[in-house]
């Protein structure tokens, strides 16, 4: 699809806005519909769009395999880290009230990092699955 001018131009115009929208959905999940899952999927959709138009090799250069696989694990570890931080600071597991001297600010902080962890894992998994499905045919079936 790299030879189709209309698709390339439209992709160049749209992909930054899709990525920005993913970040918007992530951070405004507290005030409107949104949150970690939706943001992760929209981010992965932007990268899939890029891979479809510009080729899988270019997409692998932007987000290499080792980075995507690290993202899958990093999100879960971040979530567990927030849980254990609550434990280490004197509360229960996944207790957000102890994360800050003021309990409501602690809730804000906990929810922020937890949603970030979820978004990282979901976007990593969706993108990795796409890489695996799309890359399997081009490896050639001997």
């Amino acid at each position, binding site marked *: 699809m790299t030879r189709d001018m209309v698709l390339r131009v439209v992709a160049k115009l749209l992909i930054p806005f899709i990525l920005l929208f993913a970040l918007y959905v992530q951070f405004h999940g507290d005030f409107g*519909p949104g949150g970690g*899952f939706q943001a992760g999927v929209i981010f992965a959709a932007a990268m899939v769009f890029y891979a479809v138009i510009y080729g899988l090799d270019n997409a692998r250069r932007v987000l290499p395999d080792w980075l995507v696989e690290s993202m899958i694990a990093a999100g879960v570890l971040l979530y567990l880290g927030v849980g254990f931080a609550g434990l280490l600071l004197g509360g229960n597991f996944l207790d957000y009230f102890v994360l800050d001297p003021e309990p409501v600010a602690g809730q804000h902080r906990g929810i922020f990092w937890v949603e970030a962890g979820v978004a990282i894992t*979901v976007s990593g998994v969706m993108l990795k*699955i796409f890489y*695996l*499905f799309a890359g399997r045919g081009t490896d050639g*079936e001997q």
Partner: protein
Amino acid sequence: MFAHIWSHFDYWAMLFLAMAGLFIVIARGNLIKKLVGLGIFQTSVYLLYLGPAKIVGGTAPIVDAAFKVYSNPLPHVLILTAIVVGVATLALGLALVVRIREAYGTIEEDEVLRRDVQPAGEEAQQ
């Protein structure tokens, strides 16, 4: 009677969709179509949870001073989890279908079963 049917139509639409999904799973032989049918079955169950959560005259459960009545947020949370788990299982099922295709050369269920019980004939041909 008609009022009862009309007020319960969302449950019965959900049951129709679930039974249609179940029918596709058990009656069709193509593995990808079976997975699509399974997805339809899973998605129809979401209606069972979201239907009772709605209150006419209310709004989405985002608390604001201008509104008094909200939809019930608890089923929304449960269904959010269910949607993501559903796509995870669909992806795993599709990966298995791809491997089956590479191992057997086909994704029709009865073909796969036939080739599974006749491995001796295949080896004799090679």
